[in-house]
């Protein structure tokens, strides 16, 4: 990634607190390695290894929003691979580690393919059934080296107990940093996007399947590394550590502590290993530990997502400094001269021909045709339930039309899926506002532009958005809506469908936004289909307005013509009879 791209990703830039946390982590690891007795070192080493697997849960759940119940199976595959290599080859331990990550990575892709389109529920069920199959068919036969008594040994420099503790601490640190870097990258930001909304992700031209698959495979690889460390700690492992219930338990503690953040994963590892020990110190049975995680997990989830680590971070940021107020004062600065300037053309850019859709007996759209010329606005108005949003869904590919065609710049795109339409230059926005909360303004716009769009800073000033470093979560609903529209525009689309972009905006903000929108067709040559309830906005932007009622076009013409049409008045106000 180009260096300049990091300018707006300030929340991810190396900050003083990050450095301090890293230094604290290193110092604590060294101090523990130097002072703890072998029993505690063993316990803490296994805690670090559990934390590595918890990080993998953080990647799949907290970043990509997918529930996977086979993370310990992936860890088992890592352990199995190392055991096999140790038995069959003379590779040093360090050289086995990449294989321990690669095998689960590859299996993750294979398993992911049928699970590609699964979400929440189906994926959780499928991975659970998968983990049972792996445990019974692969692991039940024993791990390689178990019968032979062939122990896996850590590398020579880490063969002492403190040495292996530090080795595991370094491995966890490396995995933690790698995950932070990934979250910064486009790959990781797409994970957040798919977590927020699959539809919005596809509408930006990104394959939902590929995005989920990458998160699943990366988390499998991380879990595999955890398994490889575990087998080196114990020398020999048995199937008992990799049963489905273990995957469920680690998911529960990862949810409780919020493994999406490094400290959450670390806490999940520490408590996972230390609580049983504390219980036996107190004379209590160790096996009530899972009950504690279960109660903790339920309590954490009842408070919403993010777990303990998110709550801690929120607390610290509240104590640390006064809340930053997003800067809305950016005056409408003059637009930079480098912007592409195209004249209004005359060719039809978006041609919608005879589309229709029905839900059971209800005809949502009935033989609707309309054309948007290059560089012009066409407004679509109509009462609630007229079929306006259905129209947008059909044109953008989320709904199939039972007849007719959609032509973009002379190409029939009727049979293409949404992401391909988006890549051909057709963008849309959503009524609900589907921008991912976990990204910054700039991070989102960079994804939306897909590398070939307008420069982020330019788009930010065009739409008077808060600075690119502002987290989306800090924006009010109106600004998020503007951001989503800006995201659709930044990719220089041939055609864009705006679904009620002005809803929820008021006063000065609305005027400024409409001014910015007005420049879109002239500046980029884009054909804009504007769905809007705000008739003033339609009147001020559009040359042509089309009125839908009960799925049919009842009037078309200039905004003032159609608004005085008696049929239109009747559709809105009811007919006097």
């Amino acid at each position, binding site marked *: 990634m180009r260096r300049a791209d990091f300018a707006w990703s300030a929340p991810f830039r190396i900050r003083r607190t990050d450095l301090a946390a890293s230094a604290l982590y290193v110092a604590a690891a060294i101090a523990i390695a130097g002072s703890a007795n072998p029993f505690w070192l063993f316990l803490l080493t296994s805690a670090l290894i559990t934390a590595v697997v918890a990080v993998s849960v953080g990647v799949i759940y907290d970043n990509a929003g997918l529930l996977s119940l086979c993370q310990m199976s992936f860890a088992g595959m890592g352990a199995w691979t190392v055991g096999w290599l140790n038995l069959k080859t003379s590779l040093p331990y360090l050289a086995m580690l990449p294989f321990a990550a690669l095998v689960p990575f590859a299996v993750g892709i294979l398993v992911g393919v049928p699970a590609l389109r699964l979400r929440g529920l189906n994926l959780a069920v499928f991975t659970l*059934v998968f983990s049972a199959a792996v445990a*019974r068919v692969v692991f039940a036969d024993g791990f390689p080296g178990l019968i032979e008594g062939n122990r896996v040994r850590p590398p020579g420099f880490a063969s002492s107990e403190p040495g292996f503790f530090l080795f595991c601490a370094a491995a966890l640190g490396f995995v933690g940093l790698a995950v932070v870097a990934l979250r910064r990258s486009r790959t990781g930001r797409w994970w957040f996007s798919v977590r927020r909304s699959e539809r919005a992700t596809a509408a930006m031209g990104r394959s939902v399947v590929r995005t989920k698959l990458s998160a699943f495979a990366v988390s499998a690889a991380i879990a595999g590394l955890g398994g490889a460390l575990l087998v080196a700690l114990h020398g020999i492992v048995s199937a008992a550590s990799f049963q489905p219930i273990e995957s469920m338990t680690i998911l529960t503690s990862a949810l*409780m502590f919020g493994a999406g953040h490094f400290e959450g994963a670390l806490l999940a590892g520490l408590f996972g290993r230390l609580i049983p020990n504390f219980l036996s110190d107190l004379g209590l049975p160790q096996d009530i530990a899972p009950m504690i995680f279960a109660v903790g997990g339920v309590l954490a989830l009842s408070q919403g997502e993010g777990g303990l680590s998110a709550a801690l971070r929120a607390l610290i940021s509240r104590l640390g400094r006064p809340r930053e107020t997003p800067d809305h004062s950016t005056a409408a600065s003059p637009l930079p001269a480098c912007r592409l300037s195209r004249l209004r053309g005359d060719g039809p850019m978006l041609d919608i021909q005879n589309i229709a859709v029905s839900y059971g007996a209800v005809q949502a759209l009935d033989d609707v045709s309309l054309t948007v010329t290059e560089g012009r606005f066409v407004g679509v108005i109509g009462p609630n339930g007229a079929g306006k949003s259905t129209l947008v869904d059909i044109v953008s590919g989320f709904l199939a039309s039972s007849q007719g065609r959609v032509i973009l710049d002379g190409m029939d795109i009727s049979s293409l899926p949404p992401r391909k339409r988006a890549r051909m230059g057709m963008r849309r926005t959503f009524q609900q506002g589907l921008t991912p909360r976990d990204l910054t303004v700039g991070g989102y716009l960079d994804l939306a532009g897909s590398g070939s769009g307008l420069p982020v800073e330019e788009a930010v000033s065009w739409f008077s958005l808060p600075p690119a470093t502002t987290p989306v979560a800090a924006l009010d609903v109106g600004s998020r809506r503007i951001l989503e529209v800006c995201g659709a525009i930044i990719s220089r689309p041939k055609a864009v469908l705006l679904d009620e972009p002005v809803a929820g905006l008021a006063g000065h903000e609305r005027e400024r936004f409409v001014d910015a929108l007005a420049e879109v067709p002239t500046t980029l040559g884009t054909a804009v289909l504007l769905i809007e309830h705000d008739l003033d906005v339609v009147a001020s932007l559009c040359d042509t307005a089309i009125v839908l009622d009960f799925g049919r076009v009842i009037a078309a013409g200039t905004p003032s013509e159609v608004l005085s049409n008696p049929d239109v008045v009747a559709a809105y106000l009811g007919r006097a009879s």
Partner: protein
Amino acid sequence: MLTLVVAGLAAGGAYAIFGVSIVVLHRMAGVVNFSQAVVGAFGAYFAAVLYGRGWDFLPAAAAGVALSAVISVAIGLMFARVFSEADGAIRTGAMIAVTVGLFAVGFRFFSDTPRSVPVIFPSASRTVGGVVVTAGTVIVLLVALATVLLMGWVLSSTRVGTQVRAISELPVVAELLGVPLFARTALVWGFTGLVSAVGMIVVASNLPGSFSSLGFLIFPAMAAALIGAFRSLSLALVGGVLVGVVEAVSSYRSTWAEYRGAVPFLIALVVLLWTQRHEVWDAAR
């Protein structure tokens, strides 16, 4: 071979009961109940403990079934109270946490050593065409079928079914409309807990296993629910029986038997490849 198929019917019938219960709860309460089997295992083990202390079979079984129903109702009320407004991933995560906790509680009370559960009506078996059909097999299949018919009817044509679906979709609105939230929730969860315990007692008397191995019958049950796409009760019934029979038949040859544990996965895989062949979106709009 036929003997194996019939042997598979008993297990398959139980999978079908769990699978259908999962589908019912998913449709009525909006939760995927990962604890369906472990809740049933509580009932089966409790019945076994009482039987071991000299209780007669029927009272022991009734007490076990009642315990499962009570646990199930407790889970249901907790979900209705705490997670009624939460989104799918959070509910699923919470259900997994509950399941982990139930396994731990089960180990605590029953330990994880295999325990034999009394065979129901040991004398009541018939030989049909050279194959022994036990009373348990017949009971479990009948309970599965009755569950499908009863719940199908409740869901589609009764006021209770409409009310429960309303609770699962818009709890606040349902409450404002005067739907008795807690009574309805308890009814649905209690019923599924009850039938699951019946299924589990039959399975456990056929294949004695440890508490966890009974709880892990959730895997074939989930495969059955998946075959029903978490919507269709009758497909879940067929799916459960299918998984049971295929598992049993896979022991026909020793080379296949090794892969018996993968049967639910393979069936789920085929089903998903088929049902997910079209693009589906995460929200209606």
